[in-house]
């Protein structure tokens, strides 16, 4: 009788865990050698209200984040959707090889985790995680994140002040201070106007001319570009 009571209690506990709020400790590490992340946004949400979805057109809010690092619109969307969020945990840029930590309390039904931050220097590249199912079992989990291209701006690889606004082509900043000027602009066309895996930057070996303002030995990366460690308490 004791055993069955115990079993029932355990079952109830397990069953309720799947819908109960969770407390998460999050650590995000920028794994790249020369790419900065703009303010990160982490949301816990239901199966619908994700921050982005591959192979579909970027929302204006996502475009605003991916082209200029501004997460205000994504935050407003997430608030309207009843998502839980941790915004800007690094209080600014997350430098190459740096980590930031934050906590997130999730509410009932917000069982999925999404993450975004713009990659600098890129035109509309971002690091992303789409709808990772939060485990119900306590423990520490590791997820690796890829670099995406929002598909909303041609990758001309020119650093242009004020180009963070949607519709103004260019890379708004190169925080490492290691980009060039005077590039003619890469002319390749972005065939894929949906969110897709970023093909990587090209750069060149001339920081005062050439096609790209980026350096081909500094500003490249390969996936994954970030590591997310989630501790479910």
């Amino acid at each position: 009788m004791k055993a069955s009571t115990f079993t029932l209690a355990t079952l109830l506990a397990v069953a309720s865990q799947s819908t109960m709020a969770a407390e998460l400790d999050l650590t995000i590490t920028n794994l790249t050698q020369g790419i900065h992340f703009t303010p990160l946004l982490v949301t816990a949400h239901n199966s619908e209200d994700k921050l982005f979805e591959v192979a579909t057109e970027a929302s204006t809010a996502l475009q605003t984040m991916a082209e200029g690092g501004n997460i205000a619109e994504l935050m407003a969307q997430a608030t309207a959707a009843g998502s839980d969020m941790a915004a800007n945990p690094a209080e600014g840029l997350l430098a190459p090889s740096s980590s930031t930590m934050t906590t997130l309390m999730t509410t009932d039904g917000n069982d999925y985790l999404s993450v975004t931050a713009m990659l600098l220097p890129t035109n509309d590249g971002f690091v992303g995680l789409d709808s990772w199912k939060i485990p119900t079992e306590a423990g520490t989990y590791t997820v690796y994140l890829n670099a995406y291209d929002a598909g909303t701006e041609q990758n001309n690889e020119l650093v242009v002040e004020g180009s963070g606004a949607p519709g103004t082509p260019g890379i708004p900043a190169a925080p490492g201070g290691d980009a060039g000027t005077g590039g003619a602009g890469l002319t390749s066309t972005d065939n894929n106007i949906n969110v897709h895996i970023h093909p990587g930057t090209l750069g060149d070996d001339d920081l005062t001319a050439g096609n790209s303002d980026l350096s081909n030995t500094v500003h490249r990366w390969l996936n994954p570009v970030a590591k997310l460690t989630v501790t479910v308490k």
Partner: protein
Amino acid sequence: MASLNNFKKSIVVVALAASLAACGDNDSNDPVQVVTPPTPEPVSYAFDVTVSNLTAGQPLSPIAVIAHTEGTLWQIGSAASVALETMAEGGDNSQLLALENAIANASSEGPVGPGANTTITLTTDSLEALKLSLATMMVNTNDGFTGLSALDVSSLAVGDSLTRTTVAYDAGTEANTEAAGTIPGPADGGEGFNEARDDVNFVARHPGVVTNEDGLSSSVLSPEHKFDNPLAKVVITRTQ
């Protein structure tokens, strides 16, 4: 009335005779069980395989999905089969679809462009040890392909799905010259399959394309054809 009685009697006699005859075939005196074998209902299992092309500029050739219980379509470090070479160099998946150990197969109707997706439905009559493999060429490469190798779907319940992403492989059967006339995709419109094997002759992960903006001046490819892993997102849902 008499005739009716006689009729009843005759029915009883016939019934007795029938049961005696049945007993005669049975050594024991157990009650006779007449077992009518149920007409076997045709059992089939169906899967929807949705593939999204996540590349910037690499259309994927018609996607082959193959159901099998053993083996793989390729193995890192081993020479590509001619069927795989034919698909990886020219996008023609007909030989892969005709593989002997395939118990079912299906192909997307056409190529799948960057940012596009397609759903392929596959039906099998057995679930035991069932694996799905998937293969498609990045058509703006010499012999680059992507896919899934022998993913076990035998424990997938109806309505459940598996999500996977795919990485880029190099068939190792054609040198990655990126030269005019050697790439079948729209970047070139060149040759697809040829029998020659002028590369390492083993399957490996793909090193990526160089392009004409990055030091390979003879390349017909440009930066828009570059890719990084993963190449595609695949969602397999068992629907029946």
